[in-house]
């Protein structure tokens, strides 16, 4: 019996080892090999760093110089400003106070004209430096404060401190817009302006629906270069611009206008409802060929109304007539449209020739462009005087504000992009991350890390680069290479082999485990 037992024991251990080797080959080698060969290629990414980003923690820094006639006034103003901005987590202001020299005081006393005073003062102050704003005391102002085109603000005396704080908050630093550019949900300004990019194309399309009945005299190239060109030149530190123009003939659009009788040369006007106008954009998109450009295009369109439909006047949704002489509207993140109606005396002539007013129309386009590029409208502040801009170019401090907004927007958007990419990768296992995308992500992360030093605000150039890298990674077509390669195809090749084979192997696992633990394998057979 003993030798028989030994033999059966030896047999049993042979069988168990055979079973174990099946398990070893199939489960320990086979399965990982299967997973490895059907794996989606992914470069290792700095997930930890990405998840540690806090988009809401960013802020911008700026410098402010307060110049007053005496130290007491300067200190008063500085303390008021410091008190107002101390709590702000979005902007950190470094304030410096100075008592003006005799010469500066003399200039300010003697020169009455504000613009002249700024010009004279520029010889003693460095107004060309970006991101430095001056608050200067100038006695006997008509308002509490005065703001012009340069990086300078005049105030009357220390009673103006409240107005100064309001103007700094609302006009110069635009903290609400800054906050909007950082927050999760876009504010009014952010949903209007174009998303940050290194370059834009600006295309002016002149829409002439009836070239056979009227001649339109309009030098598009000159108008674009003169007006839009000088406006965007000032923004060249932020973006590159390419200016273009085209004519779109015979593009007719039915405004579904309602004829309204009135007392004028025409004896009528056509009322167009505001909600109808968005359909014009669809019609324009068909022909404007904006998709050819490699960059995003800001569209400006001048619609010349044919004589039999003129003049057109836009009514808002409450049925109120547009009070301005120019009929124009803007579409957020798309562009602006001006509707130009020919004058009545032209339409009554045999040979019709219409020369739209270049200054008026281009002025409307520039005001559209300001908002589309992120320069917001300035609300009036009591006691503060904002000198109206005489030329088309933006004010110097507006450009500074825009730079701060864009920087903050780019940093937070780059971080959010990377975070949502990381989240997508977690959720969708089919996304491929090739070396190129991996490098872009790494570059974006390193730019963001380098820029996120404690205390320092966001750096414009770094922010731009980080944003560009993050965008490139997120929109890389390589991500989608295997997106539509479903999981069942991955299993299709191996399931016919593994499924029938795995059944006996997996079932043998129980007995194998019992045997290894030294427990009796065959209960019923032992007795």
């Amino acid at each position, binding site marked *: 019996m003993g030798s028989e037992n030994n033999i059966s024991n030896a047999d049993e251990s042979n069988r168990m080892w*055979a079973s174990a080797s099946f398990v070893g080959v199939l489960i320990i080698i086979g399965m990982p090999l299967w997973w490895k060969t059907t794996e989606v290629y992914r470069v290792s990414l700095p997930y930890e760093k990405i998840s540690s980003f806090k988009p809401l923690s960013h802020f911008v820094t700026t410098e402010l110089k307060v110049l007053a006639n005496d130290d007491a006034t300067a200190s008063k103003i500085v303390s008021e400003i410091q008190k107002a901005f101390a709590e702000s987590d979005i902007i950190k202001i470094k304030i410096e106070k100075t008592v003006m020299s005799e010469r500066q005081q003399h200039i300010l006393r003697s020169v009455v004209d504000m613009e002249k005073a700024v010009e004279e003062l520029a010889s003693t102050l460095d107004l060309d430096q970006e991101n430095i704003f001056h608050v200067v005391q100038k006695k006997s102002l008509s308002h509490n404060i005065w703001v012009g085109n340069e990086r300078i603000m005049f105030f009357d005396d220390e009673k103006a401190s409240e107005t100064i704080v309001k103007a700094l908050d609302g006009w110069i630093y635009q903290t609400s817009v800054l906050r909007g550019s950082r927050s999760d949900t876009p504010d009014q300004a952010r949903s209007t302006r174009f998303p940050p990019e290194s370059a834009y194309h600006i295309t002016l399309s002149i829409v002439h629906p009836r070239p*056979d009945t009227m001649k339109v005299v309009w030098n598009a190239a000159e108008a674009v270069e003169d007006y839009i060109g000088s406006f965007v030149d000032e923004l060249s530190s932020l973006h590159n611009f390419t200016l273009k123009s085209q004519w779109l003939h015979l593009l007719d659009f039915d405004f579904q206008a309602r004829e309204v009788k009135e007392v004028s040369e025409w004896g009528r006007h056509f009322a167009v409802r505001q909600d109808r106008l968005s359909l014009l954009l669809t019609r324009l998109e*068909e022909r404007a060929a904006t998709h050819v450009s490699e960059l995003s295009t800001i569209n400006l369109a001048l619609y010349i109304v044919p004589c039999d439909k003129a003049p057109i006047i836009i009514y808002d949704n409450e049925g109120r007539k547009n009070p301005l002489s120019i009929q124009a509207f803007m579409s957020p993140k798309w562009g602006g449209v001006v509707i130009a109606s020919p004058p009545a005396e032209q339409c009554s002539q045999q040979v019709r020739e219409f020369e739209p007013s270049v200054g008026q129309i281009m002025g409307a386009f520039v005001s559209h462009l300001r908002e589309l590029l992120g320069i917001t409208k300035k609300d009036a502040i009591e006691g503060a005087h904002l000198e109206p801009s005489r030329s088309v170019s933006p004010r110097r401090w507006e450009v500074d504000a825009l730079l701060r907004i864009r920087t903050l927007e780019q940093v937070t958007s780059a971080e959010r992009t990377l975070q949502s990419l990381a989240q997508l990768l977690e959720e969708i296992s089919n996304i491929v991350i090739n070396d190129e995308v991996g490098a872009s992500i790494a570059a974006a992360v390193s730019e963001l890390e380098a820029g996120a030093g404690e205390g320092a605000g966001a750096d414009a150039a770094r922010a731009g680069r980080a944003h560009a890298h993050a965008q490139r990674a997120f929109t890389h077509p390589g991500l989608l290479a295997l997106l539509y390669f479903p999981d069942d195809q991955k299993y299709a090749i191996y399931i016919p082999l593994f499924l*029938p084979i795995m059944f006996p192997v997996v079932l043998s696992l129980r007995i194998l485990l019992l045997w290894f633990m030294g427990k009796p394998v065959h209960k019923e057979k032992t007795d």
Partner: protein
Amino acid sequence: MFNSKNFLFFIAVFIETIFNANGDLFNEELFIKPLPPAHLYTYFQFTTLVNDNLSSEHTYLAPRSLVEVLTRFQVDELHFTLTEGQWRHNHWGYPVLDAAPGAELYAWFSSDVENVDTQWKKLSSTLAGLFCASLNFIEDFNTITPQMALQPTGAIPQNPNITSQLRYASLPREIVCTENLTPWKKLLPCESSRGLSALLNSRMIHNTNYHSIGVHTRKVCSSSDCSVVSLEIKQTVALVYDSKIIRTTDWSFTKLFGQGLPGGCPLASSSKVYVDITTNDTQPFLLSPEPEKVLLSQRGGSETKLALYTIKPENKMTTIGAKYISKKDLVLMKLPPLYFNRYVLGYGKEFGGIVTELTNTFWSSIDVVVLQNAPWWLPIQLSSLRINGEASSEMVLARHYSPGRSRQKPYHLELLLRLPPKSATKITIDFEFVFLKWQEYPPDANHGFYVGSAIITANLPTARNYTSLPGTASLFESSINASKPWYPAVFRTNGVMVSLPTPDFSMPYNVICLACTVVALAFGPLHNICTKELVLKVVGSSVTLKQKIINLFKKKKE
């Protein structure tokens, strides 16, 4: 090839017709030619001359999308056609512009472009988006650089290396459809609302025997010494109607295009319709309305009569038509001086050959360049080249051969031949069939594989059946009375199809399933033998519940 003096004359014509300060000129022309016995050729030509003095960023009549593409990729000259059907040269004579079946694209890049191949790739992808055509399939492996067959037609600075800036590709499988015509129409200043382009109704024009839409851009001289060049954009549509399809030999605009002509394009300097009435002598027909003028064109010994209609923008709906008076006479077609045919030889799936037959019916010899372009999966060997069955022939004046490389470069053979008078020449070249990887097969692989047309460039000594414009001219009217010592022409032969060895594509999966099943079947007993012990069962031992159930089933079966 460029004759600036001749061009000066046309500039003078242009100056008369200038009507706007922006300097762009747009002309639209339609040429109708009956092709007896049963076909009708209509050719639309829309020519925009861009005054390039300002910059390419500002456009007036020219399509900004196209101008921008040309500027961005620094293209000097571009020819793009989308064609469905086959032009039959021996029956129909020569078209104004010939085109290869499917999509064909070739372009000369500016000499400033250093990496022509990357620019070419980018250009073809951009045009793919612009015209909704599959030009993005143009890769290195189907692009060639013709050495002799193609010459720029525009004003390009003299450059001995001009061919190095040229790239040519054709996609013979491409199918042309409405989705290509719509973006094409958007390039016209009048789009399709007014002018001759209003006739291009996609429902009607795809109902033809042959249709081809094209965009041709080039630089033309705008000063006498050619120091200033301007851009010419020519958009063409060629249609061949079959009287069997339209069910009558009489034709009119309404029958051909589904509607009349709603006046000319108000932006055009001229809108003209020419009807070739030369065949009126043998196949008399009546034109209605009466033509404005009948022009007699004598060109290289052949006479053509053209009826001219000028379409004014303010014209009301007009329709031009022809009614045949008698149809009894049998027509004897005059054969064109040169025609050709191409077909595939061989049987089985190992070797084959392509034959190109060229027939010279003229009484003097004709010099031609024949360009054969074979994809990498159809290797043609120069050693197997036979001309009229002989390995070496006196007819070959020059030869260029560039062997292909698997998955990288196509095979490319160019021959400069002198075709003897009244002769037929047969060029034969053999190929082997190649096995493709399974992912390289196109959808519906059993349909066959298209091989692109051969290009035949000839300097014809006679203008018989010749309708093309003189090289420097922009408008169709300049082909009237334009006699020349010779008439340059670029033709495409018919395409051919070969059937490559094509596997059953479900086979790999079937094999996997079958093999796995066999392995699994074998594995079961093997696993059992290795891991299980056979134990004898004692008779009469207690029966478990499980065993009872199994026994129940066994009894039922019995």
